[in-house]
C-alpha cells in the first residue's frame, strides 16, 4: 500500500537534554547530555521512516520520546494533531495505545515467568476497551496466527521458543492494541542472519495488511534500505540528512552519510581493492559537549572556518533533498 500524504506523526524541534549534576547534598547542574537536539520530521500513514546512525547519536532517546516514556525538554511530537507532551490522563492513555514498540532483544524484553498468552494479552488489561475479558484468549490466538506462530502454543513460556519466534511474540504484543504507528528499535540485529529475512518479511506483510506506519531504527544500512520509504541519518542528536531511500543511498550529500555508506562492507568480493573508502578518524565527540557550528566538523574532511561558526540548517541542498552541510554535494559512494 502506498503511503498516504496525511501526516500521522509530526515532530517539530524535539529536544531532550539529560542534566549532568555534581554534588551529593547540594546538587547543581554542571551541564547536559544533549541526546536529541532539535529533530523535526513527519511520518505518514503506511510509511516506513528508517533512522540510522552510530551508537550515542540519540536514536533510542528519540524512540522513548515518541513513546511518551520521556518528557521532551522542548519541542513537540504530535500524533494526529495532538501534542503528546501536553496530553494527560485518559487522553494520554488513548494516544499511547496508538503508538507501540518492538524491542531489540527478544531474550530480555519478554518476561520469562509469563506465558505467551499473558505477554501478548497484557496490553488488554490496561486498555480493556479493545478486547472484553471473555474475548481475549481468542484475540491472542488470532495475533499468534497473524505473526506466523502456532495458536496452540498460547500457554508456552518464552524459553520454549527460538530467537526469531520470540521476536514474533514481541511483534504480536506490539500489534495487540491495533496501533497506527510501530517503533521498531533494532528489531532484527539480535537475530541470526538466516532468521533476519523471515522477520523482515513479516514486518512488511503486517504493514501492508494493517496500513501501519513504522519508525525503523537500525544500524544495518542494507536492512534499512530494504524496508524504508524515507531515511533519516542522525549524528550527535541531530538529523543531518533526510530523504527518500534512493536520495540517501544513491545521492548522499552530507559527508557523514557518505562516510557511513562507504564504511558498510559490501557482500561481494569483486572489485574490493578498487572500492572507494572514506575512513573517518576518531570517535564521535561526547554529546555533553558537542562541537560548535556543525557537529560533524571535527571528523569531516571538508571542514572550513564557516563550519565552526555557523550551524548548517537542514534544508534542500545538492541532490534535491534535505541535508545539513555547508558544502553538500551529491556523490554516489556505493557505485562510484
Amino acid at each position, binding site marked *: 500500500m502506498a503511503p498516504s500524504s496525511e501526516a500521522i506523526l509530526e515532530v517539530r524541534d524535539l529536544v531532550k537534554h539529560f542534566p549532568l549534576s555534581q554534588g551529593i547534598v547540594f546538587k547543581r547542574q554542571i551541564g547536559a547530555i544533549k541526546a536529541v537536539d532539535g529533530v523535526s520530521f513527519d511520518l505518514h500513514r503506511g510509511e516506513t521512516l528508517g533512522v540510522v546512525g552510530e551508537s550515542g547519536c540519540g536514536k533510542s532517546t528519540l524512540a522513548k520520546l515518541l513513546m511518551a516514556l520521556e518528557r521532551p525538554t522542548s519541542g513537540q511530537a504530535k500524533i494526529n494533531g495532538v501534542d503528546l507532551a501536553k496530553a494527560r490522563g485518559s487522553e494520554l492513555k488513548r494516544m499511547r495505545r496508538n503508538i507501540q514498540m518492538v524491542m531489540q532483544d527478544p531474550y530480555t524484553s519478554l518476561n520469562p515467568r509469563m506465558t505467551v498468552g499473558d505477554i501478548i494479552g497484557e496490553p488488554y488489561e490496561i486498555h480493556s476497551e479493545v478486547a472484553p475479558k471473555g474475548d481475549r484468549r481468542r484475540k491472542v490466538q488470532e495475533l499468534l496466527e497473524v505473526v506466523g506462530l502456532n495458536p496452540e502454543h498460547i500457554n508456552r513460556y518464552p524459553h520454549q521458543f527460538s530467537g526469531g519466534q520470540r521476536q514474533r511474540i514481541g511483534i504480536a504484543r506490539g500489534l495487540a492494541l491495533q496501533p497506527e504507528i510501530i517503533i521498531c528499535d533494532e528489531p532484527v540485529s539480535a537475530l541470526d542472519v538466516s532468521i*533476519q529475512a523471515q522477520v523482515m518479511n513479516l514486518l512488511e506483510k503486517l504493514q501492508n495488511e494493517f496500513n501501519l506506519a513504522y519508525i525503523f531504527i537500525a544500524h544495518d544500512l*542494507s536492512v534499512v534500505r530494504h524496508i524504508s520509504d524515507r531515511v533519516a541519518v542522525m549524528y550527535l542528536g541531530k538529523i543531518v540528512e533526510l530523504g527518500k531511500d534512493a536520495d540517501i543511498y544513491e545521492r548522499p550529500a552530507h559527508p557523514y552519510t557518505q562516510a557511513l555508506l562507504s564504511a558498510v562492507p559490501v557482500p561481494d568480493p569483486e572489485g574490493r581493492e578498487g572500492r572507494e573508502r572514506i575512513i573517518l578518524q576518531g570517535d564521535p565527540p561526547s554529546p555533553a559537549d558537542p562541537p560548535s557550528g556543525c557537529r560533524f566538523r571535527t571528523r569531516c574532511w571538508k571542514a572550513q572556518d564557516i563550519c565552526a561558526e555557523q550551524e548548517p540548517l537542514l534544508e534542500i541542498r545538492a541532490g534535491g533533498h534535505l541535508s545539513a552541510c555547508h558544502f553538500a554535494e551529491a556523490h554516489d559512494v556505493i557505485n562510484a
Partner: protein
Amino acid sequence: MVKNPSIDTSLLPADAATEPLLAVDNLHVEFTTRQGLVRAVNGVSYTVNAGESLAVLGESGSGKSVTAQAIMGILDMPPARIPKGEVRFRGTDLLKLSDQARSQIRGQRIAMIFQDALSALNPVFTVGWQISEMFRVHRGMGKRDAMKKAVELMDRVRIPAAKQRVNDYPHQFSGGMRQRIMIAMSIALDPEVLIADEPTTALDVTVQAQIMELLAELQRESNMGLILITHDLGVVADVADKIAVMYAGRIVENAPVHDLYKNPGHPYSKGLLDSIPRVDQKGQDLYAIKGLPPNLLDMPPGCAFHPRCPYRRDNCVTDVPPLYEISGTRGSACHYYREVLDGTVE
C-alpha cells in the same frame, strides 16, 4: 624470519616447510551437559598459511568459536572433550602437547582477539600494565622496558597520544580504542597465527571499518595467518582470501572467497547470500531460509540442513554427505552440489 629466538625450536619437525602453518584436521568437540551430550564440532578441517586470511562463517551455535577455542587450548575440560582430531601447528599436533608446552605457544605464536573488548580487559589495571604484562611474563623484561614496549605497541595500533594514555584504565577508552588495545596485546609477541573472533560485532560501522583496515595492515606487515570468525557476509567479502562456511558443527562449504560469492556450492551458503537485501528487490519479499537452525542436542539424521533445504531428496534424510571435492580448492558437503552450482531446483 626467526621471530622468537627464545622459543624451543625442537617443536618444529623437519617437514615444517611443506605443512601448512596451521591445520585443523577432523576435529571433534563435545560437551557433557545436564540434558545430554552436545556435539558442538563434528569433524572440522581447515588450513591457514602464512599471510593468508581464512574466514569462518556461521551462525550462533555452528561451532565456529568452539573450534577456535580448541585451537587456542582455552576450552574448559570438562565439560568439553576432544574425542578425535588434530590441530597441527607447523606439523606438531598441539592437542598432544603438555599443558606447559601449550602455554608456550598460546599468546606467543598463536594469539586471539575476542568480541567484547570491555569484558576481555581487566578493569582494575591500566591498559599499559596489561599490554606490558605480555613482555614481563613471556620475555622476562623489567617493568620500565615493558612499559616502553607497550607505548610502542599502542602507537602501532594507532591510539592517539599513546604516551599519555598508557596509564589510563579500560573504561576511559571508547569501544573502538579498547578493541585496538586488545589487538595491541595480541600482536605484542609477533604471533604467527592470529584468531579474531567477531572482532567488530560490538562496534559501529565507521569504527568497524577502522579496525578491519588496521587488522589487514598488521597482517601485511608481519605476514601472519589470520582466522576471522564472523557471521557478517560483508566483512568476509572485504578481507578474506578463502572461506569456510559452518553449519551445525560441520564445514558445509569451503572455497576461495571469489568463487563462493559468485557461485555458492551448498544450499546453505546459497540461502545466506540470497537473503541479503538487494537494491533491485525493494518492495519484494526477501528470500528467507525457512525453519530454524537445529538443536545440537537433537540433530536431524543425515544432512543436518535437510529440514530447511530446497534441494532435499530421500537420501539426504539418511546419508550424511561427506565434503565432496568440487575442485582442488573447493569442497561442498551436499549430495547435490552440482545442481546447486548450476542453480536448478527441482
